[in-house]
Every structure is written in structure tokens, then in C-alpha cells.
């Protein structure tokens, strides 16, 4: 796969993830939110007055667990971006958490609250 194909695959996964979230009672607030230099958040959704910042990771390959792609550096970037988002949208009185959504061969697995 070249660079472009990666991007297409990534976008497909995020679409899949969005559908999965909507089916599970989440309301999508934002997608691909860019917080300037700090980084990008794939999906921002809300459920039961808790904001979920969701990082989608996927792989088409059976030999690799996509969760390993969430590195401590990536996590730090997500945390910074999420705080920027909350401040920008003035949502500081809501609880929030950071989740990972793993898509492997079309199967979706959601891991909530990964920072704890």
C-alpha cells in the first residue's frame, strides 16, 4: 500500500467506527479535529453527558495488533488536543475520557478510559 491507499483505508475505518458509535448511542460532535500543532483527534462523541475523545486504530493485517500504534507520545498529543477542544468549545464542566477504538479485519473493539 502506498501513502494514498493508507489514507483511504484509514478513512474507511473511521467511517466504520462512526457508524458503530452511533449504533451504540453516541452522538458524534466532531471528526478529525485539528488542534493546531498539538495533534488530531479522530472522533469526538458524547454519551450520558460524558465526552469521549476517540482514537481509531485499524489494521488489515492479521499479524499485528493495532493497539500498539497508540504510543505514549500519541496519547500525550491526544490529551493536549482534547484539553484545547474543551476550552475552545467552553465545555469544561463536563466529564471526559479518552477511548481507543480498535478495528481489526472488520471487527470493532472499544476500550474506554485508556488513561487510567
Amino acid at each position, binding site marked *: 500500500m502506498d501513502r494514498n491507499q493508507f489514507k483511504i483505508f484509514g478513512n474507511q475505518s473511521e467511517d466504520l467506527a462512526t457508524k458503530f458509535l452511533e449504533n451504540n448511542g453516541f452522538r458524534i460532535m466532531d471528526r478529525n479535529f485539528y488542534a493546531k500543532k498539538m495533534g488530531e483527534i479522530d472522533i469526538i462523541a458524547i454519551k450520558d453527558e*460524558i465526552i469521549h475523545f476517540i482514537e481509531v486504530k485499524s489494521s488489515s493485517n492479521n499479524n499485528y495488533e493495532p493497539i500498539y500504534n497508540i504510543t505514549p507520545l500519541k496519547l500525550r498529543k491526544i*490529551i493536549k488536543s482534547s*484539553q484545547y477542544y474543551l476550552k475552545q468549545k467552553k465545555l*469544561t*464542566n*463536563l*466529564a*471526559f*475520557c*479518552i477511548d481507543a477504538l480498535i478495528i481489526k479485519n472488520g471487527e470493532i473493539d472499544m476500550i*474506554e*478510559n485508556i*488513561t*487510567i
Partner: protein
Amino acid sequence: MIINKFKCASLEGTNAKLIDVEATFTKGLPGFAVVGLASNDIQESKERVKSALLTNEFVFPPLKITVNLSPSDIKKSGTHFDLPIALLIALNKVEIKDNDIFIFGELGLDGKVKSSSMLFPIILSLKEQNLIKKAIVPKDAISYLQHIPEIKFIAVDKLSEAIRAISSNDYQTPTLKYDYNALNLLINDQKFYYNKEYEIDFIDIKGQNIAKRAALISASGMHNFLMEGSPGCGKSMIAKRFKYILPPLNKKEMLSIAKHQFLDGVTPDFLPKRPLRSPHHTATSASIFGGGSLNAKIGEVALAHSGILFFDELPHFAKPILEALREPLQDRKVNISRVNAKIEYEADIMFVGAMNPCPCGNLLSKVRECRCSDLEIKRYQNKLSDPFLDRIDIFVVMQEISVDDVGDISSSNMHTKVIDVFSRQKERGQDRLNGKLLENEIDKFCIFEDDAIKILNSAINKFALTHRSIASIKKTARTIADINSHQLIQKMDLLEALSYRRRK
């Protein structure tokens, strides 16, 4: 916001300190922090709690969790904090009304509630301070915790059971049995338990009738005892057999012995047996008296509480140890003071020592020749200072045995006599046994007949006895009078007591 609070405790020395465990759930980046000078084992509890909650299908709230152990300025340790922390997180939306409940338990990764060796000492100490009425404890700890009376225990096996017990008051209290079937005496409405089993018997010791008589006196009144004699004459044999003929115990003493066994890492059998500790002579003073720089721990002296501390080869112990032993023998407690920790503990011990008369051991022998020079003998005997020897009530010199010596007194007979003398002391209203009487109690209980007084006074003049020696003679004479069934101390009792003084 609901802030729930549970009670727990941490051990400091041998005493428990009440600790409140409270948790807040605030908005912010989700996280989990335990504050309040928690030691590593409590910090690790975060992982156990997390895993136990997740495997029991509880979600971690997406909030910043702060668990505080207060008062926050004393160091805490122990894995039993797992369960209260897990319950606070699991029930973060429920208001808990019962704020008086204590919760103890270590969690397994699957949510199983486990016991730890700290539980018994902690709960017993809380009971002694009258702080505890109701507690949630691990089910497997009930077998020994049930010996502590008047506490309502709720036994749980799994985290889910504990959650149910707290949130919906749905629990079963286990049936406890406080009383047991050990042999006992009832004196002045108090029960004293004893055990008539003798693993090793005094009947194995041939001859040595004076030493056996002295051992009987010493055991009856818990008098400090020192034996001097040639190698192989039976000193250690006597010391080992002492353990089985000691006076009966009340419930409180038995619980205290069990507490010290737990602190030593041994699971007690709750039988009415007094402990015998015999540290080797190479032991350091920290191992005997307790110590440690960060958190002070108890030593052999504490473990021998209400039992015997036996030093074999007494002069080979380091001089500082022998001198340091003076305080526990006098005040019945030890105070360990370190920069970071100060603990005080009870050490009501009966001291038993055994020594050879000289470095080669043959000084008293009729057959073998002593190889030591006068200077060597002097140096050897000088290891024991006078203030230390002053605290020994009964001193016997043992001769080598001869062929026709037989063992004629059994432990069972001696123990019957000890129990008999014990009842006399208790019936007289003594709180302590003769050997442990306080100054004012000596005047109250050790009453002499007139002609005995005269002998005592002349002995005081003749031997220039110290104040402490006089007290010790009076106490020993009291025990001998009790053995001889004399109401007042008679001349013969006093003379026998005087014969157990160390001659210089």
C-alpha cells in the same frame, strides 16, 4: 458531590492506628491517585483494584479519582486497604450511611477477598482501644478473627459480596464461637486456660533435684532464672521443658500471644501455651529488642511477651545486649526510638539463662580439670554485670550427674503444683504473679512471720543487699511459701529463697 468514607487501620509497632479511607471523583483527565503517605504495597493496590473491578463488570468512572488515607501524616502499609478503596470506587454514586464500619481485605485480580497476617494484630489492637464494633473481613480470616470477642463480623469471599453487604445491607454474619474447650480454672469470675500436654518431660532429666525444685519455684511465680553448670549437665534440657509447665493464661494474654505470633509470621493455634523464644548468642541487638530505620519492627523480647526468653550460653551474648535487657526486665516494656519511627511495646517476660562456670566449662567438675587461668575465668564472669544479675531472682549451680541419679518428677506433677500455686496467687487478688509484683504490691502480699523478719534483716546487714535484691528475695519467698501452702511467709521459706541468691 458525595464523599464516602470507610474506616480502616494501619499497624504502627504493635498498635493499630485508625485510618479513614475517603475518595473524591472530580472532573478532569481520568486518573487514579492514592495519597496520604501510602507505602508501595498500597500504591500497588491500584492495579489490583482496577483489575478486580473490571473483572466484576464495574466501569471505572471517567473522572479523576483521588483516594486519601487520613490522617495523612502517618505512614501506612498493608494490602488490606484494597477492599475499602475498591468499594469506594464501585459505590461512587451511592451515599453510604453506615460510616462506622471497618473494612479490611486484600483483593485478588479476579475480585477474591483475601486475608493478610496483619489483620489479627490490627483488629485486636482496635478492640483494645475500643474503636471497633463492626467490620467487613475476608471469609478465610474468620477462623482466627472469631477469637476476638464482641465484634460484629461480616465475612465476604468476593468483591461482589462486599458491595452487596454495603449497598443493600444484604449479608450473612458467620456463626462465631468465642469459647473453647481447653482445660480451665475459674478464679474470681475469671477463666484461666491451660494445656496438659507435654511434648518433652522433666522425667527425662536424671538427678538435678535442686535445679528441678528451683525450676518449679521459678515457673510458679514467673521468676527470672539462671542456671550455671558444667557442659551436658542438663541446663538446656530444663529450659526446654519449662515451656510446658508454665502458669495458666487468661483470654487476654492468649490473644496477645496470638497477636505476636502473627507479627512473627506464624499462624497461631490458639492453645493456652506461653511462648519460649531462644535466640542464638550471635543475635544482634536489633533482632532482640526490635529496630529498623524506616519502620521499626519488634524483636525477640516482644515475641516472648508473657512467656520465656531463654539465653543459652549467656556470657557469649554481646555485652550491649545483656545490659539493654535490664530495662525490659525492670519496666516490662521496650521503647524503640528511631528518627523515623518510635514504638513502645509490652515485654512482660520471664528470663531464663544458662551458662558454664568458665570458658572451658569444667570449673565445677569433680573429675575433669579446668584449663582456664584465673584471669580468663574472671573475664568470663565479668561479662555479667551486677545490675543485670540483681534482676535474677533464682540462681542455681548444677553439678554433674552421677550414675545412680534417676528422673522421678514428671512435668505433669510439676504443672499440677504450678497451677495450684497459680490459683493461690490469683485468689489472693494478685493481678500479677509473684515474680512480677510491683514495689507497692510486694508490701501488700509478701507478709512475713516475726522470726522470718529477723532473719531477713540480718541477711540484709550481712550481705549488704540492695533494695532490688531485697524485693527479689521477698518475691521468691512468697512463691516458696505458696508452694509449701503457708499463708504467711515462714522462716524455712525465706531461708530457701536466700539459698537461691548468687554467691560472690
